[in-house]
Every structure is written in C-alpha cells, then in structure tokens.
C-alpha cells in the first residue's frame, strides 16, 4: 500500500523576494509536480517544524516547475520559514490541492477581483490568467486594498496590472499615509466606485473573512448573483486533503471542497457566527 498522500516532495528555494513587513515570496523549484490551477494551494513542510498551507501565487512551467508562495510570518511554522529559509534551502512540498477559481468556466465574462492584504496571493494567478488570455474575458477590474502602502504585495507588478487592456485597477489603504495618493478606506468601498455589468460579471474575492462577507453582500446588492461570486476561504488546515477534519465548515472540508466556494454555497454557513 502506497502511503504517498501525506509525503512531501523535496523542493528547493531558488529565490526569496521581500514583499512587505513579515511577508516574503518563496520561489520553490520542484521536479515532477502537477501544474496547479489558479487558486489552488500547496502544503509546505519545514523539516521538523511542521506544515503550512500556502496558496500558489505564481507558476512557471518547465522541466522543473517553479512555484511562488507568498508567506506571512504569523505563527510557529511561518515564523520559522521567515527566519530560517533562504535561497538554496529545501522545503518539503506537496500539492497542488483544492478547488481553485473556476476561471475557465467563465470565459467571455467580465472579471472582477477583490483582494485584501495577503489575500492577493491566491488571486495573483488569476490576474496572470486574464492578462495572458486577454481576448477570452471581458472587462477586467482589480480592487486591492492593504492596511498600509508597505503591506501591499507584488508592488513590482502593479504597473503591469494597470497595463492590462480594458481594465480598471484601483488600490486602497486603510488609513491616510503621506506617500499615498490613492483611495483611503476599505477596499470594499471601491466596489461602489466601479462600473459593473452584473449579468455578465464574475467576481473573485479573497481577504479576511469579514471583508469577503462585506464584499459579497455589496456585490449582491449591485446585482451579481451569489453563484457568480467566489471566495477563497480559510479554516485551520492541517492535512490539506480532507482527512484530518480540522478545516470543516458546515459539511465542507475547506481544503478539499474549497478553498474556493461560490458565495451561494457558503452564505448560510458564513452567516452563523462560529459555525
């Protein structure tokens, strides 16, 4: 009996990029790894310390594929990775797991992306997907907010986002900052500021759960249907493949049935505090 599912492959960190305070992107090279689709995640293993679930924030195909993982140091394993793992070091890696964004199902639609903070990580492959297959989608809107300008991810790409044809890209920060000339306030406020054609729009949202709820409700108010609004949810996630049980949300296993859900599917569960 092959006991493979929980075994990591050996990955090598080929590059580390500082993104924001306590946030770095780790480019991990690994052989014979299935291609992740946008919104899927990997499980990274820091030897002897434990595993963490991290979205694939970019994928570069090749003989050895390279995947980018944007990690925020916030707990035991992520702090360890932040402090100890650099270019040339190894990280265990398994995946890709979960159901990603159903972007292929929505060819021809206008695409709206709403991201908050570190939540931009799983959305990043979507941006790439839309920009690379530009003719397959309608209008592209990206709304991204962070607490402070420094907390924004992928600052080195923001200009590129703006160059995507037929697109609106808006950024926000939570509180005024001398260097900031964009919007100040919640990213969800930006939803009111953009043109939407509800019948023909699909929305992809990721950020803190409250922000996703506010965003979704606003989008519904603007006429989007709940089954066209997709969220990437988060719960305590240990095994990543739906057997350890810790990520359950109602009857869903966030890792296996998600992390991407349509708002329609999870709305009743999200409506109950602590369910």
């Amino acid at each position: 009996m092959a006991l493979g599912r929980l075994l990591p492959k050996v990955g090598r960190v080929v590059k580390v990029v500082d993104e924001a305070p306590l946030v770095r992107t780790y480019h991990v090279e690994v052989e014979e790894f299935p291609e992740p689709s946008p919104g899927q995640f990997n499980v990274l293993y820091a030897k002897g310390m434990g595993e963490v679930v991290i979205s694939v924030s970019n994928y570069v195909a090749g003989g050895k594929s390279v995947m980018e993982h944007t990690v925020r140091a916030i707990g035991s394993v992520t702090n360890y990775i932040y402090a100890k793992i650099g270019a040339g070091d190894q990280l265990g890696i398994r995946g890709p797991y979960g159901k990603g964004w159903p972007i292929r199902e929505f060819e021809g639609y206008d695409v709206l992306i709403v991201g908050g903070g570190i939540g931009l990580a799983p959305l990043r492959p979507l941006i790439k997907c839309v920009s690379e297959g530009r003719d397959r989608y309608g209008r592209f809107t990206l709304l991204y907010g962070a607490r402070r300008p420094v907390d924004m991810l992928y600052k080195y790409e923001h200009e590129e986002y703006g160059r995507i044809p037929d697109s609106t890209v808006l950024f926000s920060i939570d509180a005024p900052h001398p260097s900031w000339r964009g919007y100040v306030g919640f990213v969800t406020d930006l939803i009111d500021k953009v043109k939407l054609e509800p019948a023909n729009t699909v929305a992809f949202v990721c950020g803190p759960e409250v922000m996703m709820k506010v965003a979704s409700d606003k989008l519904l108010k603007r006429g989007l249907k709940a089954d066209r609004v997709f969220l990437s949810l988060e719960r305590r996630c240990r095994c990543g493949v739906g057997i350890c049980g810790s990520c359950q949300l109602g009857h869903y296993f966030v890792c296996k049935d998600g992390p991407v859900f349509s708002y329609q599917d999870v709305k009743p569960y999200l409506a109950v505090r602590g369910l």
Partner: protein
Amino acid sequence: MPMRYFAGDSSALGDLISILRGRGLAVLSYRLWGDLPVFGEVESLRDLSIGYSDVQGPASYRLVRDERGFFRHSYYSPKYALHPPIQDIYEASNGLRAVPARVDTAPMALFGIKPCDLAAIEVLDRVLESDDFYRARRSAVAYIVVEECVEPGDTCFCGSTGTGPAASGGFDVAYARLEGRVLFRAGSERGLRLLEELKLGEAPGDLVERYDEVMEEARRKSSRLPPLDAVIKALEDSAASEGFWREVSARCVGCANCNMVCPTCFCTEFIDSADLSGRARRQRQWFGCLSYTYGQVAGMHFRPELFMRYRHFVLHKFVFYQRQIGLPGCVGCGRCITWCPMGIDLGEVVSRVVSHGSG
C-alpha cells in the same frame, strides 16, 4: 433468495474464532483485560466478554458478572484498530526525503463487534476514503463478524439512527445470542462459506421467530429519539440560535471525551519533532472538535467559544455527515453519553432541539 439462518450454541462461536485464527488472522474483539473492557486480540471463546453485562448510564459504566448478561461495548471501538489513536506518518533523516511509516497490515478479523460499530466503520470508510493509512488498516480486515444486540443498553439509541440493533449490511457473519442458543446468518459469500465450515444445522422456525420478536423489542427499546428527519430539520433550524446552544452546552467542560470515544469521530492533529542530527518525525493523533484548538488559526479563532464547538459536534453528527457522505454520523451507540464525565446526554440534547424547534 430467502435469508438462511443457522443455529448453534456458544461453542460455535469458539469454533468460528478457531477457524479465523486458522486462516492466520488476528481475531479482534471486545475482551476483558483484568477487570477492564478493552478491544484486542482474542484466542478463544474464553476471552470474549460473555457472561458479563455492561451497565451504562450518563457518566457511568459498570461491568457486572451475569451469566445471562449481555455485553455491548466500552470506551473502545473498532476505531482503535482501524484508525489508531497515534500514528507515525513519516520520518525524514536524509535531507527532506521522507520515508513513510510502516503500517501494520497483518490480516485481522473483527469479531463480535456491534451493529453500531459496523455502521461506524461504514462511516469511516467513506469519510477516510482517501486516507492511505486508514485504507491500509481497513483492507487488512479480512472478515467482520457482528454480534447483534438482543438487548440494547440504557444509553443506546441505534434504533433511532437506523444503525441497529440488527446488522444490515457490510458484514460477513452476523449472530445473535438467544437464551443459550446462537442464531447465525451470512452477509456475504465468504461469510456463508465460513458458516458452512462450522457445519451448523439450519435454524428451526421457532428460533427464527424468537429472533424476530427479540429484535423487534430491541428496536423499540433503542428508538428513544424523535424521528431522524425531524432531528435533522430541527438541528438545521437551530444552528443560528446562540442562546439555545449556549444553554445546552452550559455544563460541557470541553474535555473531548465524547470525541475520543465516538466510533465515527476521525479528526486528527499533527505533531512534529526533530533532533539535532537532522532527523525529523511527523505523527498524527486523534483530536476532538470540543478541544480549544479546533478552529484556531494563527492570530485568530473561528470557533473561540465552547458552545460553537459543541454545536459543531452535534450538527456534524446529524446534519453535516449526512451531506458529506450520505449517512448519519451518529450511529446511536451512546458512548458519548456514558463517557461524558459531566453526564451530558446527546439523546436528550437532540430531543430538546426538536421540542425547542416546535415550541
């Protein structure tokens, strides 16, 4: 094809154990270890807990010596054998090359497990379908022999959950002990061949009749919950009612005994360790949703209050499992009632949900 019943006496059970052992199988059953009801390997009829009765109530379990007694189960369940409490997952010593732990796959037979246990195995089979470690242990089970519950215990409610007191499928042999006689039936071809090997006679009509009567009475006794669909409906409706859940869980201390003894609770946590020579080990162990860490993430908590975790337990058993795997996750064994040190009665809670909903 009409069901074929065979008759024998207790010695036939001993013979059955011998036959299974003769096939090189470890025969696992409820047995006594000193004065403790455990689940482990048995070698002969003598090892079975026949002649004992388990008297169960909320927060109370007593074994009494009683020739005519009937033994149901203990805090053990087949889960201990199929989904062990602590398991090694892998070790990595050479860089990050992880070597999977060996899973003991010596062939075994589960013997004298109860219909609720059988139903629980079916639940685990589905929910742990993609768990390689579980599957390895599970496929080592060559035979399942079920003892039907002619006398349900005071905390049992398998009649309500439809998981007992008779076995309905997924077994090889089922037997019922009826006043010194034992009635056998096969649940599979392999089971039938086993019974043939026992060389038992066809059961006489009166014994079969007696069996039907006894099981009917047992079903009645073990159906103390409101109808299952009413329970499910009421639970769904109750989910948002914080006050109700706070109240029914007010006596809970979050010890997670209920999770640990529940034959269908499968959640695990992972433990990592290392040494300084470059070896690392990953293990997993049972973890209860009533425990604090369940729902906790770095920097916040999705179920910070105990009532939320308690609610999850109950809703999961009756509502969410149904949606996950098409079966109720509660098999009505009553273990969580007996082994809750606070004596919280799930059956009562569920009944209260129903009356709360309609009242």
